């Protein structure tokens, strides 16, 4: 059954690329998160409270308090092995979701090609998958990050719900724009490129405040530096992840799925 084959292939691809991502992250992303959390406790409580009151409609209540936004009493993984374990699990789970989406989309293209052949059928292999990996990186990392760079813990930003919605808009528009441009058949397909710009024309929700309001000036400067490092570290880790996910997906779709697509 086609559905089961894709699930199986996505488990394999998601598992492998999620583990790779965890390893790269552990080495250059997580240390920055930990450093930022150390700084987080240095926020001046009064200033932080004032800031959170000024902040327009914070969806997360008083999330800019010194002790991070974690609500009192809510479960959280213990420091050390437990926290690392949950991060690896979350990475693998997200990678599984990405792999499912990517391979389902790939299989749709393969099926379309089989039902209505065009001159240039792509050869399914890991190299073809790498192209999909680059597209995935653009859709799920680059496009959302252009408006809303990955942020370190402790920074103040616009309400969460609005930013999540904008993230989905950016990913959705970029995916649709790329798909129309690459797979469209009429000359109008180049209009798909306009979709790439749409979320950035609409604009990302802003908090109207400095991200490190409430911190002493020297700490804020340190956190600004961390925030810049974080953008580069995540850009690299996610690039490695998406290339692995794409390459593996191309291989797996050819190996396990292609035969049962039509």
């Amino acid at each position, binding site marked *: *059954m*086609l*559905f089961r084959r*894709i*699930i199986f292939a*996505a488990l394999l691809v998601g598992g492998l690329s999620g583990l790779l991502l965890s390893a790269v*992250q552990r080495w250059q*992303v*997580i240390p920055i*998160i930990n450093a930022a959390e150390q700084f987080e406790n240095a926020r001046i409580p009064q200033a932080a409270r004032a800031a959170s009151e000024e902040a327009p409609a914070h969806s*997360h209540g008083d*999330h800019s308090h010194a002790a991070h936004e*974690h*609500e009192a009493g*809510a*479960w*959280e*993984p213990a420091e050390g092995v437990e926290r690392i374990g*949950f*991060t690896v699990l*979350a*990475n693998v*789970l*997200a990678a*599984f*979701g*990405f792999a*499912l*989406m*990517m*391979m*389902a989309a790939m*299989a*749709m293209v*393969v*099926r379309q*090609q*089989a*039902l209505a052949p065009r001159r240039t*059928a792509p050869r399914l292999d890991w190299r073809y998958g790498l192209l999909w990996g680059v597209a995935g990186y653009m859709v*799920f*990392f680059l496009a*959302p990050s252009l408006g*809303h*760079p*990955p*942020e*370190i*813990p402790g920074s103040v930003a616009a309400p*969460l*719900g609005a930013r*999540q919605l904008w*993230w989905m808009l950016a990913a959705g528009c970029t995916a649709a724009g790329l798909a129309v441009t690459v797979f469209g058949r009429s000359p109008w397909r180049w209009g798909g490129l306009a979709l790439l710009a749409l979320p950035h024309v609409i604009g990302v929700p802003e908090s109207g405040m400095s991200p490190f309001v409430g911190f002493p000036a020297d700490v804020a400067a340190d956190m600004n530096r961390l925030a810049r490092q974080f953008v580069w570290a*995540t850009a690299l*880790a*996610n690039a490695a992840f998406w290339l692995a996910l794409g390459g593996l997906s191309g291989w797996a779709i050819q190996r396990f799925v*292609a*035969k049962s*697509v*039509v």
Partner: protein
Amino acid sequence: MQSQATIAGTTRATLLSKGIQLASALFLGIVVLYGSGFVQSSEVHNAAHDMRHAAGFPCH
């Protein structure tokens, strides 16, 4: 890539159901991603916290 003969031998009903299977896989992928990256419940947020920051998902 399958040959034309195989395609002709496949019934329309099977083709339709394969399309639905692919759409279901895509949808399941979106649900899994939403669950790990966007659900706002405290427990899920805390468990996935570092992944969300590292992936560039809006976290808090």
